[in-house]
């Protein structure tokens, strides 16, 4: 039998090892999973809009995530982060619909989305400063008996076992991003790049199905960038989907199977990296002039 720690980078096995029954969606029979997945996109938005008074930050976005790693690029102010905020439940859409694995999720709060396996990171790293690096990861562990007042007093043995298993899982995740040696350091003391890696490792603790990364490579040194790319590729190979907002187009080119370009709150175009970067409208959106 595989231990929880050993299944760390295999989300399906990890969820099974965790005894995860959180998914409220119908669970397809073995063998039918891939067929079902091919029909239902991981994430889908329909006519999604977000208005702040007179400003329409997101203006009718139709987006379908059907590739393992999708990039979302566009100039500053295009509405990328607002879109990500809506999808992750941090903000409510003014109009439109969001579906995650076929289920409408527009009304769900962020903690319910996280429980469904939809996790995000932030443009400016938001590590939990007063917690250590290890505690940041342990926090993200779902379904902990020790998080209920009843559980922590009535089931001390279970709390201890779960904590021990969580530490092993966190150790594997931190070793993967080369942060285990800093496990006891306050998260606020990490460098900018380390914080980005911490956020990714923390997201992985939730055994996600889709991770929304908001500028994961911003401020990351080249050596750490390699770790970041390897980690994302490894997770994608294990079945985790990614939607990545990134201004570093080399990262997008290296990672993404599919790229969507946003400008002025709308999807301007989409396709492979080569296709979208050859599109004159994309160059115009970035540079503000026709090539």
């Amino acid at each position, binding site marked *: 039998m595989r231990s929880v720690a050993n299944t760390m980078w295999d989300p399906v096995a990890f969820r099974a090892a965790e005894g995860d029954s959180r998914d409220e969606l119908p669970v397809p029979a073995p063998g039918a999973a891939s067929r079902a997945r091919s029909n239902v996109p991981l994430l889908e938005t329909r006519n999604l809009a977000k208005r702040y008074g007179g400003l329409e930050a997101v203006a009718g976005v139709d987006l379908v995530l059907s590739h393992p790693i999708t990039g979302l690029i566009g100039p500053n102010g295009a509405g990328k982060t607002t879109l990500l905020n809506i999808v*992750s*439940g*941090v903000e409510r859409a003014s109009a439109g619909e969001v579906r995650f694995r076929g289920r409408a999720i527009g009304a769900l*709060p*962020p*903690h319910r*989305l*996280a*429980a469904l396996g939809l*996790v*995000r990171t*932030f443009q400016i790293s*938001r590590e*939990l*400063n*007063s*917690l*250590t690096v*290890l*505690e940041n990861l*342990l*926090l*993200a*562990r*779902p379904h*902990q008996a*020790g*998080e*209920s*007042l009843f559980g*922590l*007093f009535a089931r001390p043995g279970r*709390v*201890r*076992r779960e*904590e*021990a298993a969580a*530490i092993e899982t966190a*150790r594997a995740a931190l070793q993967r991003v080369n942060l*285990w040696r800093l*496990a*006891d350091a306050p998260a606020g003391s990490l460098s900018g790049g380390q914080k980005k890696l911490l956020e990714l490792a*923390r997201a992985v603790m*939730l055994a996600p199905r889709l991770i929304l990364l908001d500028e994961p490579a911003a401020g990351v040194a080249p050596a750490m960038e390699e770790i970041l790319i390897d980690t994302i590729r490894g997770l994608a190979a294990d079945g985790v989907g990614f939607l990545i907002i990134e201004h570093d187009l080399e990262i997008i080119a290296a990672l993404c199977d599919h790229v969507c370009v946003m400008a002025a709150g709308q999807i301007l175009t989409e396709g492979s990296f080569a296709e979208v970067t050859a599109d004159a409208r994309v160059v115009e959106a970035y540079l503000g002039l026709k090539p």
Partner: protein
Amino acid sequence: MMGYLVAILTFVSLAVLLGLALNIQWGQAGMINFGLAGFYGIGAYTAAILAKHGVDGFTATAAAIAVTAAFSAGVSLATLRLREDYLAITTLAFSEAVRLVLMNEVWLTGGTDGIRDIPRPLVGVIGGEHYEVAFLVACLALIAIVYGLLERIVSAPFGRALRAVRDDDVVAATLGKDVLALRVKAFAVGGAVIGLAGALHAFYFTYIDPGEFAGFVTVYAFMSVIVGGKGSNRGLMAGAVTVMILLEGTRFLKDVVPVLSAQQVASLRLMLIGVGLIAMLIYRPQGLSSEYRLSARQPAGAEPGS
């Protein structure tokens, strides 16, 4: 002298309980409770009213704990969208509302006359002569129990989730934490401890009136937490003792500086307390002790501090 020491230690015990309560609400969960005195009053009046109606002291204390916890949960639910300054103002307003109710609902609370001759639990068994000492011992035992329970909470994933909510509630939510539920639970747990302290207050003094549940109670609790170290229960106890020593010790100023009038001594006392607190904030802003942190080298499940 012995009687004075016992009385002071009993006051310190009540201050420790209030500080422990504030430490989970504010120190751990980041919810500023400027209305602590109001909740304290609810606990004291619940115990006193029930005891006056013939309910035994233990049941009255349990009821005070439950009622104060329920009020705390209710207030935190009503203020679920408020943070920091706004929550502080709202809890302050709640405390003032409680004080006005205590002053004006004479049929229930005795109004400004308060409630006199509150029956003490087990006074017939222990006897009047040793009752104060026995009461102090009971207070210390209850502190030990409350401390143990709160340390268990702080070192468990529940405490970790509270600190995450305190640091950044949006991140906590995106990591699957039900922020509202955590806040309500933290406020209710703190409220339960305040209710216990309120009941002990009523039984110790055997007389309560609305003036005893004014802002200074809240201020002393905040001073205890700040001096002890926000989030640290161990530090809080040291902080509460330090604050009470400062408060009580400065009473003897009139013996040290006999040339000053009583009014001048009272003013000087407040100045010294203020200077002490400012010095603490400048030279040791983190307080006497740091809050709990799990270490990767600490065996999983080990009790804190082991």
